[in-house]
């Protein structure tokens, strides 16, 4: 599903590579934690998957497509197959829960009938039934993140990228978020989650890929966050 082959990324005006000869394979339906300290290259990894950045060398395949050969024109189509969740939720403050989720379908031109059918289902999947008409500011952080997950998942992507989704949420609420991610993963969606949260990684017992200074220092199935932390 995601295939990195000897990928190196150096940002302009920086000597140290953000990713240094990274090779990783993520299969369909896997749940992978991407761990490591700040600046270790986790976010760069996710940005490369979305083709927001281009690698300086090496090749990346996502959902069977070679990103180097993917024209800019087709990048939006790639992104329709990838859902994204962030630490800061990125909801539209002037739209309610339903509209925020529906927005993701509207802007890719889905028919209204389809939107009316799918959006309530997804809102229920993330556990927000009955809150469809709340505004984001009326929701707790955990609930806002659920909205963001609903939006990321509403188009049934093949891959869900989560960049520290529990970073702004207290540990108790985080468990709920992880349950939703797990539920999404069980539908067959590949989940790639960058995180600092040792407790979550340890409790989930999923594959762990650890980055340090842009290099992979550990790739462990059913791993934990690591003793050093």
């Amino acid at each position: 599903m995601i295939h990195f082959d000897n990928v190196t990324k150096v940002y302009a005006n920086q000597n140290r590579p953000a990713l240094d000869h990274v090779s990783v394979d993520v299969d369909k339906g896997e749940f992978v934690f991407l761990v490591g300290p700040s600046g270790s290259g986790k976010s760069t990894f996710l940005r490369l998957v979305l083709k927001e950045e281009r690698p300086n060398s090496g090749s990346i395949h996502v959902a069977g497509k070679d990103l180097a050969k993917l024209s800019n024109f087709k990048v939006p189509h790639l992104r329709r197959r990838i859902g994204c969740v962030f630490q800061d939720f990125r909801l539209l403050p002037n739209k309610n829960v339903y509209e925020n989720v529906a927005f993701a379908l509207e802007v890719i031109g889905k028919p209204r009938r389809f939107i009316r059918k799918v959006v309530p289902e997804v809102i229920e999947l993330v556990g927000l039934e009955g809150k469809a008409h709340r505004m984001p500011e009326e929701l707790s952080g955990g609930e806002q993140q659920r909205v963001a997950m609903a939006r990321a998942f509403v188009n049934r992507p093949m891959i869900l990228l989560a960049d520290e989704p529990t970073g702004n949420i207290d540990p108790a609420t985080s468990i709920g978020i992880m349950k939703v991610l797990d539920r999404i993963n069980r539908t067959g969606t590949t989940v790639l989650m960058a995180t600092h949260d040792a407790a979550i990684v340890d409790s989930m017992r999923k594959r762990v890929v650890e980055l340090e200074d842009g290099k992979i220092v550990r790739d462990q199935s059913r791993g934990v966050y690591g003793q050093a932390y």
Partner: protein
Amino acid sequence: MRANFIFSEVWIGLRRNLTMTIAVIVTVAVGMALLGVGLMINSQVSKLTGFWSDKVELSVYLCVKGSPFDACKNKGAVTQEEKGSLEQTIRGLPEVESVKFETQAEAYKNWQNTENNTLLLSVTKVEDMPESFRVKLKDPEKAAVVASNLKGQPGVSNVVNERDLLQSVFGFMDTLRNMALGIAILMVFAATLLIGNTVRLSAYNRRRETGIMRLVGASNIYIQLPFVMEGLIAGLIGGVLSGVLLILVKIFIFEEIQTYMVAPLGWDTVAGVITGTMAIGVLICVFASFVTLRRYLRV
């Protein structure tokens, strides 16, 4: 593509940047109106030039009794012999194509047709009008040579190159046109920058929305279209206003001076000018939106 989605985005964008949008509309309107005025003057001048070009001639005025010209002083009216030899001389010149003699009576009639000062009309008599030879030249550029040649001849009071008179009128209109076009270019430049700024503000205001759109895989056209439409609508409103301004210019300026213009500027020309300037205004707006978008809206 969902039209109502695009239009609601456009409406929100225009409303959020209302002052900027108004600035764009006014600049486009004034700029395009000036461009239109320039074009209208241009077509007026070329119409006049066409009308006059086969009518320009040298007028060789002859002395009348009591003529104030130096050449005639103390000599009285031109004599019959002088007239005869003068005509011979003129006909003998290689540059001359044809010569026509205008009698005092004809001159008086022509003058009566163009003059509308009643006091002057009532006190002027036929005898006051000078006789003249109307000389048509093979090459109008040679007028100065022929004029200086004929000036010293006995019985000649004055030689007027009518082209010089026209030239000063055309020169004035040329200056007007150049000024209008010059200011129009400046306004177009200002409009381009203003639109660029508006689009930049708009892109900044909507960076959340566009960021999410990008993330969920909205196509570039879908993301960019609302911004370009904003430019297009502002350009269109500006264009319509400039059309109104041009119609006012036609009614209040061109119609007014029509009395002096033998070749009037028709409404068909005005319609053409308005269509042209509106198209240019809209194109400039769309182009400016597009160029700035590429800088401020990463897709």
